[in-house]
């Protein structure tokens, strides 16, 4: 078979495209577990804050630390089989920095600023992280983050006495539904 340079270039482009889509599908599946874990942890955080308000600060700090540790552990477990790249670790560390930043400010500002604002601050920061990740990882993350952020803003302005429940449902719900969707469209090993 004779292949000219134009056909060779088209074949290489096709290969690059399929490899990129395959890696993205694996990344989606791997990310799904992280999303669901965070969704469950956040729901626990809201439940503890609601039933034991005095323990709210320490419980949120615990949720953040456990979430970060679980994220790193899940990726480390998947890394040997997948050939985890530098870019993936950068994304993880970026998420950890963002969460640490939000937790730190929420801890400092918690006693000072109005309750609806502090309840909206950390979830909106998480949605910002998802939107920023979407710039590299695809439009699904962009849409998920934007929808979550819009619902958080709506809850801050409209939910009144239902604020805590609203934020719990929106934040953990967005993460869990997003995680399950990623599992559906991703590829398992």
């Amino acid at each position: 078979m004779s292949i000219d340079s134009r056909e060779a270039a088209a074949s290489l482009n096709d290969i690059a495209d399929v490899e990129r889509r395959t890696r993205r599908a694996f990344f989606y599946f791997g990310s799904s577990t992280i999303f669901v874990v965070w969704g469950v942890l956040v729901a626990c955080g809201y439940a503890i804050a609601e039933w034991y308000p005095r323990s709210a600060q320490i419980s949120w700090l615990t949720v953040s630390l456990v979430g970060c540790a679980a994220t790193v552990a899940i990726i480390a477990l998947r890394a040997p089989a997948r050939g985890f790249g530098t870019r993936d670790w950068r994304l993880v560390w970026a998420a950890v920095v963002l969460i640490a930043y939000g937790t730190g400010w929420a801890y400092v500002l918690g006693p000072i600023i109005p309750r609806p604002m502090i309840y909206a601050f950390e979830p909106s920061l998480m949605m910002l992280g998802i939107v920023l990740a979407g710039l590299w990882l695809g439009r699904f993350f962009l849409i998920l983050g934007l929808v979550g952020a819009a619902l958080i803003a709506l809850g801050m302005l409209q939910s009144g006495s239902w604020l805590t429940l609203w934020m719990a449902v929106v934040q953990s719900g967005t993460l869990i539904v997003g995680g399950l969707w990623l599992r559906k469209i991703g590829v398992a090993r």
Partner: protein
Amino acid sequence: MSGSNDVIHQAMRLRIMAALNALAPGAASIEFTRLKSLLGATDGNLGAHLETLEKAGYIAIEKRFTDRKPQTRVRMSPAGRRAFAEHVAYLREIIEGGQT
């Protein structure tokens, strides 16, 4: 320069090999239906091309039951990985050398 690999170069088989090559060597396989959706192929088309690649020794097909449902998983063999790398190198050489 090595020659063209006619088994791999067919468009759908090239895409199958590219998808399998994106998995880590020795560790990973992919489920038939997921591969089908990744490549936009039909059952019959994908099945026929997988059979050709398996006969050439480039892939291994494993059939098993998971939760009482039949599942077909596809994995690239070391020979397949080598053949694919050689074919990609050949395509690059054509572009660099302007050879047909």
